[in-house]
């Protein structure tokens, strides 16, 4: 199949599902977490680039490792999560640059979705659909947890169970996201569409649909820009996203 079509399918799906998940992360004030988690995947991306396997496959174990490390350190040290995240993600970046060949650095940092193959596309489509349905399934409960943990507890919601599913969805989206925008820019994929959408929305339905749409359309336009100008796709996607955000400020309700 045409390389361009494959990139579009992969990009649009990752963008859309990141936008959707981003609405939950924004309502939990957690969008920035996707950034450090993305940086953390750099050693995994480096390994994937050196040995020639799927970047997301390399990234995924490192996201999981990062989440578990931050979680354990938080219990042990009682330091705030932001401090631990800073420690853990700088470690990731440092390790990656110990052995990442400099000519591969650009792909690792800002991603490259324009070379995805059929096999990678199939995996991405499967994972994105899976996460989409998981998020849909947990959405109402997660919103209630984000509004008030007390109300969620008294409504007999198993908060731990939902948080684990939610974190797992974040981990997979970050691993998929680095394929598209690299280890540096993953926070943007979840933060910007949701923020733009919140500026414009009166209700949850608009909030989630607009964020999903903004995520999809910016990937689509970003990849088009690459096609016609040869500017890198990852940064173009983020810039389109930011432009949408700026426009949303003008129309803010």
């Amino acid at each position, binding site marked *: 199949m045409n390389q361009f079509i494959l990139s579009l399918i992969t990009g649009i799906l990752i963008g859309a599902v990141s936008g959707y998940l981003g609405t939950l992360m924004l309502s939990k004030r957690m969008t920035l977490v996707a950034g450090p988690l993305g940086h953390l995947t750099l050693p995994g991306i480096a390994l994937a680039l050196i040995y020639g396997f799927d970047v997301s496959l390399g990234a995924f174990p490192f996201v999981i490792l990062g989440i578990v490390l931050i979680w354990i350190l938080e219990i042990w040290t009682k330091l705030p999560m932001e401090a631990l995240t800073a420690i853990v993600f700088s470690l990731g970046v440092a390790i990656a640059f110990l052995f990442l060949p400099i000519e591969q650095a650009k792909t690792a940092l800002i991603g490259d979705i324009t070379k995805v193959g059929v096999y990678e596309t199939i995996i991405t489509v499967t994972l994105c659909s899976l996460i989409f349905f998981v998020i849909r399934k947990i959405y109402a409960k997660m919103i209630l947890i984000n509004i008030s943990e*007390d109300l969620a507890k008294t409504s007999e919601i198993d908060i731990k169970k939902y948080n684990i599913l939610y974190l797992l969805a974040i981990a997979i989206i970050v691993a998929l996201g680095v394929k598209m925008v690299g280890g540096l820019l993953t926070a943007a994929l979840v933060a910007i569409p949701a923020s733009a959408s919140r500026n414009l929305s009166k209700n*949850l339905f608009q909030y989630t649909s607009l964020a999903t749409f903004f995520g999809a359309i910016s990937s689509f336009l970003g990849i088009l820009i690459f096609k016609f100008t040869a500017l890198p796709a990852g940064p173009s996607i983020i810039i389109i996203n930011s432009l949408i955000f700026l426009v949303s400020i003008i129309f803010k309700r």
Partner: protein
Amino acid sequence: MKEPILKVKNLNVKLDSEEIIKGLSFEVKEGDVLTILGPNGAGKTVLLKTLVGIFPYKGKIEWRKDVRIGYVPQRVPFIKDIPINVEEFFLLKTTSEEAREILESVGFEESILKKRLGDLSSGQFQRILVAWALVKNPNVLLFDEPMAGIDISGKETIYNLLFKLKKERNLTILLVTHDLSVVFKFSNFVVCLNKCPICQGVPKKVLTPQILHKLYKEEVKFYTHHH
């Protein structure tokens, strides 16, 4: 006589190794309006949250078997961060039909359904929370009075509403307040608390000037110390 709806025996609550509630015992009968009274930081909200199972505790909390609890929290801190309308807020827990019914019974017009939660006044939002707690038809309502943001007429509206609901739905109500007039006007039993239990009984009998002085003493000392 029927079994009490709630029995609390020698309740102790510790949060982050600080003792918040010490050795509290009381009972609630069906149809009671019980007030938990005490100064700021006395552990009133903690007591309510412990009773609904949010905090761990030592001692005994026994709800009668047929109890269905509705809980109205004091604060819902992040509500303005999420674009969600009243109808969607109810859909998190119930159907649109039940939402309409309940909202009507607490005196809202249907147009409220499409209003964004973050755009409501604090009085309106408080009534929405009461309505939300009525989903699934509870027979016990726990109400934590907001510390600030609601004016006197809003306050009256909410307590009149609670009292009306109590009669219509045969509710037992446990409420937290530091407003003495609410205690005398609405409740038939009071538990005074300042970490340790201070008194309990019928408000007009137990809330003597001496007891009130004892209850709020610490707070008064605290302020005089600073001036």
